[in-house]
């Protein structure tokens, strides 16, 4: 099974499901200034969000830990440990990043497709 991410124009095959360890993420390079953090949880749900941590500016979110807060699936940044809601990308701990921008991660459509099928 191939994991595919949609960049707004088309689907990209980025890896196979086996490349993903439940509970952890990997980084995906779309272009020089676009990195995506891709996660698989233990029920095999997939999430794709910005790899850039708005609080440190570093491209590190793929190295964060998955979890839950209440019934929301979450991602904790490995840098300063802010927690993001994976369903809407919002930071649950702070509303704005140090640069004044809203602390919200862009979410990318992600799907599982039979191998070889990038459409």
């Amino acid at each position, binding site marked *: 099974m191939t994991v595919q991410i949609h960049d707004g124009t088309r689907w990209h095959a980025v*890896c196979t499901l086996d490349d993903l360890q439940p509970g952890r993420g990997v980084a995906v*390079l779309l272009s020089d200034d676009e990195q995506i953090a891709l996660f698989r949880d233990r029920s095999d749900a997939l999430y794709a969000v910005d790899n850039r941590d708005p609080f440190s500016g570093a491209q590190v979110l793929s190295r964060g*830990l998955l979890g839950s807060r209440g019934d929301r699936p979450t991602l*904790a940044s490995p840098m300063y440990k802010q927690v993001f809601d994976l369903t809407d990308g919002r930071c649950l701990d702070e509303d704005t990043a140090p640069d004044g921008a809203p602390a919200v991660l862009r979410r990318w459509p992600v799907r599982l497709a039979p191998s070889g099928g990038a459409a």
Partner: protein
Amino acid sequence: MTKSDGMTENNGMTTDDRSIRDLVLVGHGMVGQRFLEAWTEQPAARGWRVTVLAEEPRPAYDRVHLSALFDGRTAEDLSLCPPGFLAEHGIDLRLGDPVTAIDRAGRTVTTRSGTEVRYDVLVLATGSVPFVPPVPGKDAAGCHVYRTIEDLDAIRADAEAAGTGVVVGGGLLGLEAAGALKAGGLATHVVEFAPRLMAVQVDDGGGAVLRRKIEDLGVTVHTSAGASGVVTGPDGRVTALALSDGRELPADLVVFSAGVRARDQLARDCGLPVGERGGIVVDAHCRTEDPDILAIGECAQAADGRVYGLVAPGYQMAETAARTLAGPAGEGFTGADTSTKLKLLGVDVASFGDPHGTAEGALDVLYSDSRSGVYRKLVIGPDGALLGGVLVGDTEAYGTLRPLAAAGKPLTVAPEQLVLPAGFASAGPVALPDDAVLCSCHNVTQGAVRAAVRDQGCDSVAAVKKCTRAGTGCGSCLKQLATVVTEELEAAGVSTSKGLCEHFTHTRAELYEIVRVTGITAFTELLDRHGSGEGCEICKPTVASILASLGNGHILDGEQGALQDSNDHFLANLQRNGSYSVVPRVPGGEITPEGLIAIGEIARDHGLYTKITGGQRIDLFGATVDQLPVIWSKLVNAGFESGHAYGKALRTVKSCVGETWCRYGVQDSTALAIELELRYRGLRSPHKLKSAVSGCARECAEAQSKDFGIIATSAGWNLYVGGNGGMTPRHADLLAADLDRETLIRTIDRYLMFYIRTADRLERTSVWLERLEGGLDHLRAVVLDDSLGIAAELDELMARHITGYQDEWAETLADPGRMRRFASFVNAPGTPDPAVTFVPERGQIRPARPGESGQTLTAPVLVAGARLEVLTP
């Protein structure tokens, strides 16, 4: 309340706007400051202008903890006057200009600089002066008193050139001063006129236990001896102290700390009555004979005819005076509880109620154990009420006993249950009546604390402290306070979970036991059986650490790999730009030239920034995740292994060179440090663990700031535990002295395993030890005497750790499954992360700042001449 500067300046003889009245406070000590706080809280304080005339050059500070200045705290740390407090309330504080005279008729005071200040109300809080016995030579160079920061600075300056110090006075202040001299590195003697130490607070039995404990610490005690004269040398400096029993104690420094005398001269000079033994006479509302003059604290003789030398009664007088001035005379001050609990020279001492059993028909219940240095005496009245008591060596019960004694009601449990050690006492917790005073500094009853929780919405100890002030004085009631707050919250149905996070209601220690007993090895199984939800960044790494502590194989295998924090996940330390640093282990800080060259070559070839760490090793910065395996394969080939700088695990065992090279060393500290580092390497724990070994008492390895530190003695090794540097430094406590190598190692094994088993998440040994019920004595009993019967288990766990140790990095490199994670991008594994860029600085690299254009690092980096340039090929 705000005023213009001009009005404050006008506070002189000329009358200005008389709608504003002048309150003048003489003295800005602890009680003076407390008065200002209590006064400014009164609505009536509006319309008053407050001027404070103080003798000392700095605002109020915590005199009770003066000796902390010897432990590295600064005068600023002791300050009691919060920044902005004076400005906020428009208080005009004039430092270094004491009042020299009071003109009651003209209602003015005159200061040393000649300034006259008008008052409508005058509050005297001039405190007391140290009493110096009138012996010949008392003013010689090298003679000191112990009251102000300036006194302590003078003692400290003299102590540098001194070898021996003598403290005259074995009371509370004398022992404080002795502690300060000892901390300053002096051979210390205490001379006490009474037959025992702390004669006012403790009885003969308690005094004997206290004396033994203090002598064990190396302080020499002379009781039933007074000072009869100070012997000086040709230069006029102290050389000895002559004692009343004819002996002479050689001394380079003498501190007189034989009590205090009320500073009542100002009152005497203006005709106000003073007590027979000093102290300005005041009534229950703290008013002197002149209704416009009040006196509070140590300078006053309270309505019960006593002059109180403790801060808690002083605070109560300060609050009484504020109420008196505010309006219809409220509750007065007619005497105070002189109960005390303190740590003198590291020995816990407490005395409460009527410690000497002076009441008619009073009987004693006594427990004394000279071996462990514990003494407890309770004084019981004929009706079975607790009247008072003395506790030495273990003051744990003070929080319950003092309010019980103050309540004066018959005990509901047999008194012997209250003095027996925890293991023998069968009684449950003792219920306090609601009118029992929980916090005697601020006179807060248990009922008031309960009401704050129940009716005022306080849902934590912090909230209750803020609302009632309970626990904000000496802090001795905090434990009891927490118990009452928790009880009340539970009664209200508020859950007070001590759980790790929302997914587990268990503490880390409880989870450790669950994992140990059930043998669960997978996080999801633990979560599904004992927790809820999906876990989080708190419980996942905690469980990962517990699994690793209990020896469950490589930390990156199977499900464990998904639990690790980023650092453990990549076996490296995440830096601010997303790159990682690498620290190979250098046991004991000993490294061969070949080793240095190998590290240097690897760093040079990969263009890494290098820096020497505080733990005597070398940190290599700037690696991206995909470079880590290449760098580590080179390090492993050169004979290095993981330094676990990324883990909550043993970091380093620092050492000095020891007797092998050093002229002063008495043992081979380097060899021991290497042995310990190799023994405990890879040991996962609730927080990082640091250690050091010093080869002599000069302590160059700074072992006393470590989780476990070892200092060589001529007879073996002294083991210190619970030390910490960092944000809240703590000196380690001596756990055991003069141990042989084998006993030392066994003791450390058990200490570490006991800590790992019982500590909270991210709780350093320093905090754990402070929290551990029974403290150091309990720890000693567990690891040395096996009081819990778990020593064999702890030994076995450590043995398992040692035999199971494998270098995490060598194992990772050998396993393709573990290596998969080290790809920069899952869809472009060979591509360096374009976001991690560097620029040159001081001949090395540093992360490019936002907006700065840097370059990615891809090995090899070319070196051009003397100027280092980072180039991409």
